[in-house]
């Protein structure tokens, strides 16, 4: 096995695992902003309970997700030093903006939000969550600016064999950016909404005493999913036009592809310029899942008079559908990223020039190490989420009021 293949495999593994966390983070934070704001305006205690219970799941997922994001960020330098060398002047900028203006603030706000429940005024506490959500969206946006540039490089010129930035505005209006960003956000909302609906369905199936709480969660989750899935499908299909035009090799044959392959062969020498079929097979399945979720949501009218809960079997449908959004987001990224092969930057920098000149043994060690570490994190995340979700909402540790006595040693209240 050569270094390039191992580096690609590592990128696929870390990116996929990372995005499983990202989808839940982006989806849940949006719902949390909704419930905490509703609580702030109406003053109803149920919203505070909703915020604490779902916030708990959100925080577990967020903190473990950071670890995967760190590996993602360092991976560019560790495994893809050629990418930094040839196109870093352009590609590095959106990622730098993402870390400095979005992620740094997001984590700082979240730390204060977690520990600030009974210490800060309610308005300030709510503003912190808004800050977390807005910076999370900004983060997703800048990462997508970077990714869109890899898909379709714009706003640069090549001097001395290195890309230099000429037009930052062009990066922001990249035709492969807008719909894809909308698609990612909608996919995250579907994932977050489905998670909320499925956990609620579980409790309603088990007839947990907290009926009103989970009924409300189910409604919020399902309605969010219903709206988001329409956007998801819309943004998804909208991408076929620009992508087919700008990346003719991505979705199979046609004269455009043949012409482009001939052009590349003339420019870069003979080679295999067609991506593996894997990407398109995955895309088919993803579309199938999207459509399945869309038709599955025909059960939403059953929310009327709680028929959905009274009939019970729709609850099972909601619960069993939970894995599908996760499978779909991975397949979607595979289609976008594997479909870019053999290019690190489409039509500009082939992957073999982008990979770091390190030995295969080192790359294999790093692949095994990081994949095991991040894979374990993903599994641990799911076990923890499932346990905390199953435990119910009677007393989550997040936002628990401090004990009235003032003994000097804080006891472990989280158990």
């Amino acid at each position, binding site marked *: 096995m050569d270094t390039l293949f191992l580096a690609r495999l590592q990128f696929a593994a870390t990116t996929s695992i990372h995005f499983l966390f990202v989808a839940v983070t982006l989806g849940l934070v949006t719902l949390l902003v909704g419930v905490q704001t509703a609580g702030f305006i109406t003053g109803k205690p149920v919203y505070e309970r909703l915020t604490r219970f779902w916030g708990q799941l959100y925080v*577990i997922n967020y*903190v*473990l997700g*950071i*670890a995967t994001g*760190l590996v993602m*960020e*360092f991976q560019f*330098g*560790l495994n893809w*030093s050629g*990418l*930094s*060398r040839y196109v*870093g*002047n*352009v590609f*590095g*900028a959106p*990622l*730098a903006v*993402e*870390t*400095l203006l979005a992620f*740094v*603030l997001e984590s*700082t706000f979240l*730390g*204060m939000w*977690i*520990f*600030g*429940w009974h*210490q*800060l005024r309610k308005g300030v506490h709510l503003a912190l969550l808004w800050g977390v959500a807005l910076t999370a969206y900004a983060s997703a946006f800048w990462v997508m600016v970077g990714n869109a540039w890899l898909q379709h490089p714009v706003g640069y010129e090549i001097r001395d064999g290195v890309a*230099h*930035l*000429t037009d930052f505005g062009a990066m922001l209006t990249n035709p492969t950016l807008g719909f894809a960003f909308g698609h990612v956000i909608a996919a995250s909302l579907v994932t977050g909404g489905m998670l909320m609906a499925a956990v609620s369905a579980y409790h309603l199936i088990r007839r947990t005493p907290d009926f009103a709480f989970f009924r409300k969660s189910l409604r919020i989750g399902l309605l969010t999913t219903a709206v988001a899935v329409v956007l998801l499908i819309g943004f998804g299909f909208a991408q076929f036009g620009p992508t087919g035009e700008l990346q003719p090799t991505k979705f199979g044959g046609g004269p455009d592809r043949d012409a482009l392959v001939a052009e590349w062969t003339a420019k870069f020498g003979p080679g295999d310029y067609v991506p593996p079929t894997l990407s398109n097979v995955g895309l088919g399945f993803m579309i199938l899942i999207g459509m399945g979720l869309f038709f599955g949501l025909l059960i939403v009218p059953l929310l009327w008079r709680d028929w959905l809960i009274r009939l019970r079997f729709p609850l099972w449908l909601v619960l069993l559908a939970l894995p599908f959004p996760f499978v779909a987001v991975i397949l979607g990224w595979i289609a976008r990223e594997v479909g870019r092969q053999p290019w690190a930057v489409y039509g500009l920098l082939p992957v073999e020039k982008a990979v770091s*000149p*390190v*030995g295969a043994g*080192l790359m294999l*060690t790093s692949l095994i*190490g990081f994949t095991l*570490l991040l894979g374990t994190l993903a599994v*641990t995340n799911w076990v*923890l989420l499932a*346990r*905390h979700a199953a435990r119910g909402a009677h007393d989550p*540790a997040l936002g628990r009021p*401090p*004990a009235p*006595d*003032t*003994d*000097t*040693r*804080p*006891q472990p209240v*989280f158990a």
Partner: protein
Amino acid sequence: MELVWYALFGLFLATYLVLGGYDYGVGLLLARGATEERRRAALTALGPFFLGNEVWLVAAAGTLLGAFPTLEGELLSGFYPAVFGALAGVVLVTAGVQLRSRPRAGSARTGWDRVVVAGSVLAALGWGALLGGLLQGLPLHADRHVDGVGHLFTPFVAAVALAMLALVAVQGATFLTLRLPAAGAASLGRVARRLVPVALAAVAVATVLGLLSDRVRAAVARPAVAVLLPLLLVAALLMARAALGRARSGVAFTATSAALALPVVLVGVALWPRVLVSTVDPTASLTVADGAASGPTLSLLGWLVLPLVPALLGFQAMCWWVFRGRTDGRAPVYW
């Protein structure tokens, strides 16, 4: 413009070592055979700052990626094992701290605490090895490939890594004297005082090995700085010890923080204008200007990012202010 960004990168990295340093220091101290209550109290003291500390690593890496893309690629891939170890450590600490309070069983908690300890050791050794590796240069060729990873396994790099571990432990203990309830703080103050001589010895060994190493002498462009700054570091540690003796936690913490920031200044200034020094081909060395992004990128980032750096610092300061003072029974517990 490169200089501004290089200074900013140094600032972020030093801030990370100072703040992340006490995260890992507190992590190391979980190994102190302490009772569950003591570990609980230590993590509660760390609590609100934990998420905000690690962001500086991400900020430093982001600055590297945006403003020094060439340097980023060659630095990280050239010191692959050190970066890999440090990152694995950071991941273990981040996950371990979050996970340790989730299971109900005490044994599982002890298990996760061990993960945190191991992660803290790895992170401190890894970043130390990276700084040491920078000071001694690497076998970088003109075609930008580096010969293997053997260049990292030298006594000097090992000594710097161990010195970083000792400094981080001192930093963690000193941070706890600042945050724990008065009773707990006193015993931690004694621990910190006992750790200072260890750190002094480690720094001295690293300095002597550096002076004896041909590669370090060849890489360093400003020997005066390379000797003066370790002396300052020693002075900071002695000051910390004196302050700890008088229970002046604030002064002690300032001094140990300076001790963690100084190595970054040392590496930056001693090697300037170079940053990656090749031990095999002098023309292959990378200067800060070579490693930087081109003019338009730096000025774009300057317009976008620099005006907001005060806001970043401001929100962090807000976090420190809101959660200032010692923890008590009413301190929020989450980790």
